[in-house]
């Protein structure tokens, strides 16, 4: 039976834990709002870029002309998976979900490649993979601090160059896709070669554009931007997912702390009552003895 003071100390300690989890939840909620905003803001550009690319590529494909190396799949020997996690923990299953999804990808699809390499963005991915004794070819550090499009572009450029140089034949991104504040889905999506835009009905407009300088040049300019945009989107989705996951993790931690506090308070009151009763009994029996 713990003493009264022990229980009181535990209550204080759980209360301060609740304070912290509550604060973390608030911070995550604020950051989530900003991250969601950032996703919404990139949407117009992403959609317009996609539509433009589709128009140009569909038209080119329809005429059987122009193929760009970034569009053409080739025999895949070496593949690389870029795993995106957060730098910090305390976000529920956020980080382990991506890692597990990546491992599933490696066991299910890994057989198609001669070699699969791994790269990481975010400290947790590196730590997790190292702990599982997997080789990490490259670790992009500090991406999450002050997330900018320029940074995403730099990563995209690096992979585009390696792809064109033949060092890698397929690149995948593994990250948490943001569905809502409480739902994130880990996904593995192809980055390179660029999945050929589908030439659905009506995709080929009746009137062709005038291109300046030329359609090939335009395509060569559009595609790297498309790749950069994919990386950028993955980073933003991951950031929003991280804050969402942390928010719900901290929410349930706060709730647990509250339950614990009420259970402890009950125990404390009971113990105190028992103590008071015992005191009273002693006094009464003492008085009785004097009679």
């Amino acid at each position, binding site marked *: 039976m713990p003493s009264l003071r022990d229980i009181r100390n535990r209550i204080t300690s759980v209360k301060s834990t609740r304070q912290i989890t509550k604060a973390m939840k608030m911070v995550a909620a604020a950051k989530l709002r900003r991250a969601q905003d*950032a996703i919404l*803001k*990139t949407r*117009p*550009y*992403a959609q*317009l*870029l996609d539509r*433009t690319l589709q128009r*140009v590529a569909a038209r080119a494909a329809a005429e059987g002309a122009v193929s760009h190396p970034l569009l053409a799949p080739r025999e895949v020997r070496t593949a690389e998976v870029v795993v995106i996690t957060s730098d910090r923990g305390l976000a529920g299953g956020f980080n382990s979900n991506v890692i597990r999804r990546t491992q599933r990808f490696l066991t299910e699809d890994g057989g198609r490649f001669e070699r699969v390499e791994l790269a990481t963005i975010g400290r947790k991915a590196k730590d997790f993979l190292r702990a599982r004794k997997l080789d990490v070819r490259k670790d992009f550090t500090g991406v999450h601090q002050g997330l900018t*499009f320029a940074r995403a572009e730099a990563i995209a450029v690096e992979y585009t160059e390696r792809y064109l140089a033949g060092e890698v034949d397929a690149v995948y991104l593994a990250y948490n896709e943001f569905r809502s504040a409480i739902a994130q889905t880990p996904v593995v999506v192809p980055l390179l070669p660029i999945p050929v835009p589908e030439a659905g009905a009506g995709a080929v*407009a009746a*009137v*062709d*554009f*005038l*291109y*300046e*300088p030329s359609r090939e*040049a*335009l395509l060569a*300019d*559009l595609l790297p*931007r498309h790749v*950069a*945009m994919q990386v*950028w989107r993955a980073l933003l989705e991951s950031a929003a997912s991280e804050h969402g996951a942390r928010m719900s993790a901290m929410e349930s931690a706060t709730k647990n702390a509250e339950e614990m506090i009420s259970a402890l308070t009950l125990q404390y009151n009971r113990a105190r009552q028992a103590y008071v009763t015992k005191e009273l009994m002693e006094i009464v029996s003492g008085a009785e003895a004097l009679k």
Partner: protein
Amino acid sequence: MALSLEIVTPERRVLSVACDEVRAPGAQGGFGVRPGHTAFMSTLDPGRLTYVEGGREHHLAVGGGFLQVADDKVVVLADTAEAAGDIDVARARKALEESRTRLLRLAEDDAQYAVDVARVRRAAARLHVAGQ
């Protein structure tokens, strides 16, 4: 107001207005767009993009990208786009100076050469729009 102009960057939607004319720094020289323009697509160089709205000219510094015209809708996918008020003049001036001095020492086939040429052009476009 027969043209609709939309300017977006990877980070946000900059502008969506109705206007009468758009002038842009195309990769093969500047061009203008007025209502009834044929379907057209062009890459843009860093430079000054101007649109005319009710007789008033508005300028933006764009850092390269694409422009497409179809059905009197002008869509600009810019890498960056800033109006005069949003430009950090000190930063642009510093970038201009740095790259300019570096360019004097670089060979033309250096990989860094093209990077710095682009930087100079972006900085120059910003200063131009900011009226400096």
